[in-house]
């Protein structure tokens, strides 16, 4: 990861009505940081004719209305913005709110905590402490409805995904790889290792806001016991006891 080349942003057509701006092919932390800055700027001041903006980890997809702009004009606008982000970086976006999300770590709720602690070069207790001390944020939401990619964990968490799949992780599973956390919104199969579980359900179809987290939200995990987890997971709103702090 340390030998990645300098970032070379490219705006490329993505389907007949989309353009993708990509800082890098692989999830390098510098590319992610640049993406967060670019996405904040796009959100605050969308290019003309854009109908949808969907940020991913190191790229952002924009859909456009061909009657109001062109593929070429949008690509040029995005490359100019990306160049600005790299050469004259704006301040990192400041989150406007922070979720404090209770989670149980280890044991039945985090069957791979020991393995992960070893990969991160630390003890289980210290691994949990590092997760819960990290100033995390929602990097992107995708794959499944509401499923957040959260990061970044400290550098000692840069180990890759497993080559074999975890046959079944449950809804609420907190899984880790490549300095990131994916918190599962539904039961799934994954190459990520499960270290904990939250009662927080980021996708509840019949909730007034079906998806609670937004890209850019700050996240703090709060450790709770397995028995406390059981009570929180039963919360009717599906938020698992999470507290939303509005930041100035």
């Amino acid at each position: 990861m340390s030998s990645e080349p300098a970032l070379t942003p490219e705006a490329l057509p993505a389907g007949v009505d989309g353009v993708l701006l990509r800082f890098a092919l692989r999830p390098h932390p510098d590319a992610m940081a640049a993406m967060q800055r670019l996405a904040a700027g796009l959100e605050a001041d969308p290019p003309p004719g854009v109908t949808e903006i969907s940020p991913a980890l190191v790229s952002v997809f924009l859909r456009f209305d061909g009657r109001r702009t062109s593929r070429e004009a949008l690509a040029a606008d995005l490359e100019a913005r990306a160049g600005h982000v790299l050469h004259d970086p704006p301040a990192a976006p400041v989150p406007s709110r922070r979720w404090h999300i209770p989670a149980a770590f280890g044991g039945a709720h985090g069957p791979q905590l020991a393995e992960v602690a070893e990969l991160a070069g630390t003890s289980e207790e210290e691994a949990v402490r590092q997760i819960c001390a990290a100033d995390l944020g929602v990097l992107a939401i995708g794959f499944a409805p509401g499923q957040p990619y959260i990061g970044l964990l400290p550098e000692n968490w840069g180990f890759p995904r497993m080559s074999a799949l975890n046959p079944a992780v449950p809804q609420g599973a907190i899984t880790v790889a490549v300095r990131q956390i994916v918190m599962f919104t539904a039961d799934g199969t994954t190459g990520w290792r499960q270290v904990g579980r939250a009662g927080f359900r980021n996708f509840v179809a019949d909730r007034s806001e079906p998806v609670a987290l937004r890209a850019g939200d700050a996240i703090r995990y709060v450790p709770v016991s397995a028995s406390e987890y059981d009570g929180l997971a039963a919360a009717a709103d599906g938020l698992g006891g999470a507290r939303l702090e509005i930041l100035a």
Partner: protein
Amino acid sequence: MSALKILRADGLMTVQDAGRAGHLAQGVSRGGAMDRRALVEAAALLGLRELPAAIEMAGAGGSFSVTEPMRVALAGAPMAATLDGAKLRWNCTHLVEPGQTLRLGGMEAGLYGYLAPAGGIAAEPWMGSRAAHLAIGIGRLLESGDSLPCGADPDPGRPARTLAPEQRFGGGRVRTVDGPQTGLFEPEVLEAFYATAFTRAPRGNRQGVALAAERHFTSEHAAGLASDVIQPGDLQMTGEGLPYVLMAECQTMGGYPRIGTVIPADLPTVAQAVPGTALHFQRVSFAEADRICRSEADQLREAAARCRNLVRDPADIADLLSYTLVSGVTAGDDLDRTD
């Protein structure tokens, strides 16, 4: 409120409409009809300005009745259709009266047929759409005994209409444009891909359709790619190098490389390809794709202009002798009239 009743469900049936665009940032894919062209043709036949919420039938249909007189459009994969035993033509509207039984049998070609009531199915919308998306718990499979509330038919007396459907039920050529990962494939791999005769593989659903070929198409650069936005039409290469065409309910982010993207105009051909159907891909420029792909609003206007009043073939009329034939003489230009 009027209702469309399902007397018997034989196929996998769900309510589908144009889907819920604009929610990728929340991880919610657009979904909606697998063959969007069928909804365009149904709307044109019914004289609607927007794509209706219809019953999408996969593999087989069922039996239906109505509580109020309503026109229905039959579109998409042609199916054996009868009303109280009398044969009905496909790609037409038909008036169904309470007490009559509409039977839709197996597909004659293609996979997805559509039954669209003129007033639309009035199921509760979720995130702006009535489309079922079973994988994420939205909507459900329709069952025998269901009664689906429908909007009132705005014009039940409107003459029956017919339309020659756009050809898409026999596979063949599927046009693509390059995508953000096309450059990760070596030129020889791309050339071989576009020269390959594929068949639609048995695996497939509303998320994606697998293709089979002798050859595999891999990229040296596929390992460790950051996930990015994926869309219906994307030709995603799995680890072993066989393509999946992503369809209406595909996930919103993925990490497998995509060799290209099927243009929206040709995606119905992929949706309607039954397992074993031959498909081959043709790479077109964006200028060409822009010429081919018109907005659905434009497609609807064009399809509506091509609709004609339905003139019944005497051979299809079971009770011919009960008709007063002589007074029904017309100028003979029924097929040419637009109204």
